[in-house]
């Protein structure tokens, strides 16, 4: 993956598509995967990815080089995915109760077996489906994309302690519900 230099950003902001493609190749994995985990739907994730990069291309002229392009794109991605999700009300409709969704994942055994059977995606989606939108975004940015607390706080424009408390509540919820499921399937 090529490094995104200031020259590339400058050229892209002047409409150079080749330079913009370099930015796309460096950032699209993040954008698509965050959108996919938030939307839980590939078509929606593709639509959000397109929207994020078209917005980025349009607004690149006003981008100040002293700030981080990565953080800026993170913020556009999260805002876009959240707005898209709210608009389509996909998220609320797709959230099942943990008992249902986790049962699907846990029927054949524990999480480790699921991973071995290449059902990782299903397990992850089931875990995420029990979280509210704010908690889900934090868990995706931290556990899947590996952002630091500081980066998450910047992307979401929130305090670092809010990131901490959202992650804590999300994980407590997952743990408590998983214990119920473990109990039922023992």
């Amino acid at each position, binding site marked *: 993956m090529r490094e995104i230099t200031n020259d590339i950003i400058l050229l892209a902001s002047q*409409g150079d*598509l080749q330079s*913009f*493609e370099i930015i*796309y190749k460096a950032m*699209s*994995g993040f*954008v*698509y*995967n965050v959108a*996919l985990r938030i939307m839980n739907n*590939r078509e929606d994730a*593709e639509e959000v*990815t*397109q929207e994020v*990069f*078209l917005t980025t*291309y349009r607004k690149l002229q006003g981008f100040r080089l002293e700030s981080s392009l990565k953080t800026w794109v993170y913020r556009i991605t999260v805002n876009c995915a959240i707005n898209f999700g709210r608009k389509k009300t996909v998220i609320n409709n797709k959230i099942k109760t943990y008992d249902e969704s986790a049962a699907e994942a846990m029927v054949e055994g*524990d*999480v*480790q077996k*699921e*991973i071995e059977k290449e059902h*990782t*995606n299903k*397990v*992850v989606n089931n*875990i995420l489906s029990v979280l509210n939108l704010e908690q889900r975004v934090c868990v995706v940015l*931290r*556990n*899947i994309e590996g952002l*630091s*607390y500081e980066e998450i706080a910047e992307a979401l424009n929130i305090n670092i302690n809010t990131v*901490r408390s959202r*992650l*804590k509540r999300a*994980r*407590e919820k*997952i*743990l408590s519900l*998983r214990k119920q499921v473990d109990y039922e399937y023992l």
Partner: protein
Amino acid sequence: MNTCKNIKDLILTDYMDSEVDLSTREQISSHLLNCSHCRRFAAEAEKNLAVPFKGKIREDVPEHVWSSIRQSIENAAMANTQSKSFINNFIQIFSFPKLAPALGGFVVLLLMGTFILNSHQIKQVKEKEQGEYLASLWKTVDFENSDLRTPIEEYFL
């Protein structure tokens, strides 16, 4: 002094996410060695919260996404160029290369206008002068006493 509650909170956040400094990590590790309850909790947290995300869960972006983005950008650029060219065409009508003939035409029109106006004014002045001259003649001639009659007129009179 670390209580089990604090340790659990840290396990669910900074400890799990490697956001703690070395000394705090050592304190937590030391507590876990001595507290079986927290050790079990840490194992549960690892199994249920960390392990599921350790597999390959990131997906590749489909190829066609970039094609769509590129197409949208090119279409927008083309639409922008078309609207700009319309404005430019409009401006070019009055632009420099056509300024000379436009100015020439304007001067010709101005001269023609001036000529027509002058002719009209001259005609008006002439008519006015003629009228005044006849009127002055009329006033100066004494038809009663003047001897302007011709022999023929004399004969008939």
